[in-house]
C-alpha cells in the first residue's frame, strides 16, 4: 500500500530529522542539480503543506519514504500568486505506477485551495522526457527555453500552468 501525506511542521516542535534526511537522500540520488541543506529547509519551512510525501506502508519507518515533491507558493511581483514546483523524485523501484502523478495532483489541490494560486511554474531539463510528459499531461505549457540553465549545461524549459486569468495578462510589469 502506498499512502500520501504532506510534511508536518511545527516551528515550536523539532522536526523529524529522520524524515527530512530520507527526503534529502531521495532527491540527492535522483536529481542532477546539487542542493544544499538550506534549500530543502527553505522550501520545507516556507510551505510544509506543499511538501508531499509518498510512503510504502509495508516498509519499516525510517526507510518508508519512496517519493517526494517539494514546492512553494508566494506572491509574484505583487500582482499574482505563483506556485512553484521545486523538485520531484520517485524511487526508481516505484516508478511508472502513477505516484508522481498523485503527488503533483495533490500539490496542485493545495496550491489552488489553500494558496489560491493564479499559476504554477517550474523549470525542467529539455532532455528529461519523463518529467516533461508528466507536467505536460497536467496542461503545463512551455513558455520559454532557457539557454544552458543547469550546471550540467543543459537547456531548460520554463513550464507554466495557468489557473486564473491573472496568469495570462501581460503588462509591462508582468
Amino acid at each position, binding site marked *: 500500500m502506498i499512502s500520501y501525506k504532506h510534511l508536518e511542521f511545527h516551528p515550536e516542535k*523539532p*522536526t523529524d*530529522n529522520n524524515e*527530512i*534526511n530520507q527526503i534529502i537522500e531521495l532527491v*540527492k540520488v535522483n536529481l542532477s542539480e*546539487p*542542493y*544544499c*541543506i*538550506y*534549500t530543502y*529547509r*527553505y522550501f520545507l*519551512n*516556507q510551505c510544509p503543506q506543499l511538501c508531499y510525501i509518498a510512503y510504502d506502508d509495508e516498509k519499516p519507518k525510517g526507510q518508508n519514504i519512496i517519493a517526494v515533491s517539494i514546492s512553494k507558493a508566494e506572491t509574484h511581483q505583487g500582482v499574482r500568486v505563483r506556485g512553484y514546483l521545486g523538485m520531484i523524485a520517485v524511487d526508481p523501484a516505484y516508478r511508472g505506477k502513477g505516484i508522481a*502523478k498523485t503527488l503533483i*495532483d495533490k500539490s*496542485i489541490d493545495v496550491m489552488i485551495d489553500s494558496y489560491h494560486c493564479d*499559476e504554477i511554474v517550474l523549470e525542467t531539463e*529539455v532532455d528529461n522526457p519523463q518529467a516533461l510528459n508528466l507536467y*505536460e*499531461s*497536467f*496542461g*503545463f*505549457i*512551455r*513558455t*520559454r*527555453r*532557457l*539557454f*544552458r*540553465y543547469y*550546471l550540467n*549545461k543543459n*537547456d531548460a*524549459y520554463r513550464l*507554466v*500552468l*495557468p*489557473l*486564473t*486569468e491573472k*496568469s*495570462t*495578462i*501581460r*503588462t*509591462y510589469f508582468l
Partner: protein
Amino acid sequence: MSRHTNPAELNNLELDSWVDITQQFFETAKNVKHGNIVKLESLDLMEGTDAKEILNPALDTGLIEDESYDCDRDLTLDETVRVVANITSCLVTWLDSSSLPVTLFSCRYIEEILTRFSALLSSSTIVEKIFQVSNLQYSNKLDQSDSFTYRILRAYLIGVLNFTAFVLNIPVLKDEEDLNRVSMDLNIDLLLQFPQKDVADLVNSAYSLLEKRDDKNSKVLQLYFDILKRLQMLYPLSASVNQGDFQDTLFLHEATGFIDKLSEENDYIDSIPQIPHLFTRGIQKRKNNIFPPRPIKMHSFTICISYLHYLFDDLKLAMDVLCFQDAADLRNRLYIFGSKRNEKLPDQEHTSTHIVAALFLESILLRDGLILGAIPVSEFLKQDLSSLTAGESVVLSLLEDDKLTNDRAIKARASSLLQEMEKTYISWIQSFLQNPSKQRDFFLDSVVVWDTIQVTADDLETSLPDDYGLEDTFKSIQPDGSLSELPVMPLSSYVYYMKLDSMVQVVFRGIELEIYKPWEMYQMYWYGLYLLSTLESHIARMKDVAKYKLSKAEGESKDIWKKTLDHINFLIQETIVFKTLAQAQQYTWTILDNLKLLKLPKYNRTTPQLLYQLRMKPFSSVGIPQLPSIQHFQNFADEIAEGSLRFRTERERVQDICFRCSSAVRQLTTEVKTAASQLKKIHPSRGRFKADYERGVDQILRSSIGVAVFSTKVNKKIKDAEFVTQCLKENPSNQAYDVSLSRAQYHRFFRLRRLNI
C-alpha cells in the same frame, strides 16, 4: 566579513577594535540540536540556498583530493605537445559556456603563472618592470633554464592567456551562460597589460625555434602556434574603425587550413599519454571559490578541431557582416548571422554563432554607440527607414530642414520619437547576436516596445498635414477598383513592419525551440499564418507607396525609390514563400486534428481558454493586429469541416475533410516551389550571403517536399476505413499512433511531423 574580502581590505580593518566572540559562539551553539534550524522570524532562508554545505561531496570543494604536481619537472617533447593540445581543448571548451576553473585554470602551469604573477604584482612597487613579459615568474626552473620545451610552453601559455584576457575584455555585455567570467580572484586582466608587442615577440621567437626543427612533434606544435598567431591578428582588427580592414579574411582562411592539417594528427596526439595531476580540480579547492565542485571539462581532440573550425568560420562570417554596404544590406546579413546554427557539433543544434564571433561583431558594429564607431545610429536608422518605407520622404529631413518647418514643438516630438526608435533599432541589431533562446526573448520584448512607439508615430504623422501643412500622400487602387489618396506615414509604417516581423519571429522561433507541443501546432500555424497575411498586406501597402513615388520621382530621387521598391519586392516574395508553406503545414495539422491524433493533456487541470490566453500572452496587449480569440480559431476549424457536413457517418465526414486538406497541401507545395525559385532570383545580396540565403531557401524546399510526402502517405492511409474508425474511437486503445516532431534537414521554422503508425 564577506568571502570576497581581499587581502588589502583585510589590512585596512582595524582589528583592535573588534571583539572576539568565538568562545561565546561555541558555547551557545552547544545548545542547538544537530540538524535543527535556528532562525529569526524576520529572516528568510532564501539567502541560505546558495550556501556551500561542508562535508557534502556535491557541494564541499574542501573534499576534492588535491594531488601535487611539480611545475619544475622536465618535459619531453611529446609531453609538451600533450600540454599544448590540452590547453587548446580547454580554451575552446571554456568558450563553449564552461567556466575557466574547470577548463584553462585547471592546468597547474596556468594556475602557477597567474598566482605568481598576482603575488609579484602586489609585493612590488616597480609595476613597469613587471609588465614585461621577460619578467613573468613562471616556474623556478623555467626562469633560469633555457630548456627548449619550456620556452615553447611558456610562449603558448602566455599567448593563450593573453587571448583569454582579450575575449574577457571585449566591451559587450553577455550573460554567464554565454561567456563565463568566473576567475577565482586570479587577475587574468593583468595579462592584457603587457605590451602586445612583447607577447607577439615571445610567441614569434618560440615559433622560429620550431621552424628550425624537422621532428614531428615540432611540426605539430608549429600548427598550434600557427592557429594562435591567427587569433592574435584579431587584436588590432578589434580596434579598427576602417570598414575596409574587415575585407581581408585571408588569415582566417589560413587558420582553417592549419586546423585541417592538425586534424590529420589525430592518431599521434591521441597516442600521447596524459600527464598525471597536471590538469586537476585542485584549483577549485585552493583558490577563492563560491561554486560547488565541478568536473574538469576538456573536449576531445576531434571535438576540439570542430570547435576551432566553428570559431574561425564564424569569425569569417562576422567579418563579412562588417563589410555591409548600407542599412538594407546589413539587415540581410544580420538575418543570416542570426540564423546560423551549428548542427554539425554534438548537442549544439540550439546554439548560434560562436560567442567570440558574436562579441567581436557587436563590439565593432556598435562601438561607442555609433555604427562601426563612426556613423550615428540616427543616420543609419534613416537609411533603414528609407530602404523600407520612407524612400526619401520629407519626414526624414524634418529635424534638419528648417525650410520644411521651424516649429520647435514638432521638432521636439520628432526627435524624441526618433530617439525611441534608435534605442529599439539597436536592440533589434543586438538580437541577432544572441543565442537562439535569447533571440526569441529579444523579439518578444520588442513587440510591446514597437507597439508603444507606433502609437507615438501615428500621432505625430497624422498631425503633420493639418497642424504643420506637411502633406505626404500616395494614390492606390482599392479592392473595389476606385483610386484613393492615402497618407504615406513612413515612420508609423516602418514601426508597424518591425512589430509584425518581430511577432512572426516569436511564433516561428517558438517552433524552432520546440516550445509548442504537437497539440498546439495547429493553432500556432494558424496564428502564424494570420500574422504573415497581415504582414503581407502591409508590405503590399509599402509597395504601393514605393511604386507611386517612383512614378512621380525624377533624377536621384528615382534611384532611391527604385532601391526601396526592389527591397520591398524581395520582402514580399519572402513573405509569400513562408505564408504558402505555413498554410500547407496548417492543413496537415488540420488532418491530424480531425483524426484526433493530437493528444491533449491527459490529466488537464486548466481550461483550453486559459491555455490559449497564456500561449498568446506575448501578443495580448498589442493594439494592431489585435489578438484573435480562441473562438476565431474554433470558427476557422469549423469552417474547414463545414464542407463535409453532407456525409452520413463521422468516419466518412472526417475522410472527406482529410482528402480535401491533403489535396490543398499538394497544391500549396507546388506553389512553394515556384515562389521559392523566384525568391532565389531576387535576393539582393551577392557572394556568400546569397549562397547562405539560398541554402536556407533549399531547406524550405526540403520542408515543403516533406510536407507533400507526408500528405500523400496520410492520404493513402485515410482510404483505409478501419484506420480512420480506429483513430476516431474515444480513447484510442493503442498508443501506436504517435505524432512527434522531427527537425533533421528541414527548415527550423517548418519542422516535420512524424506519424508513427
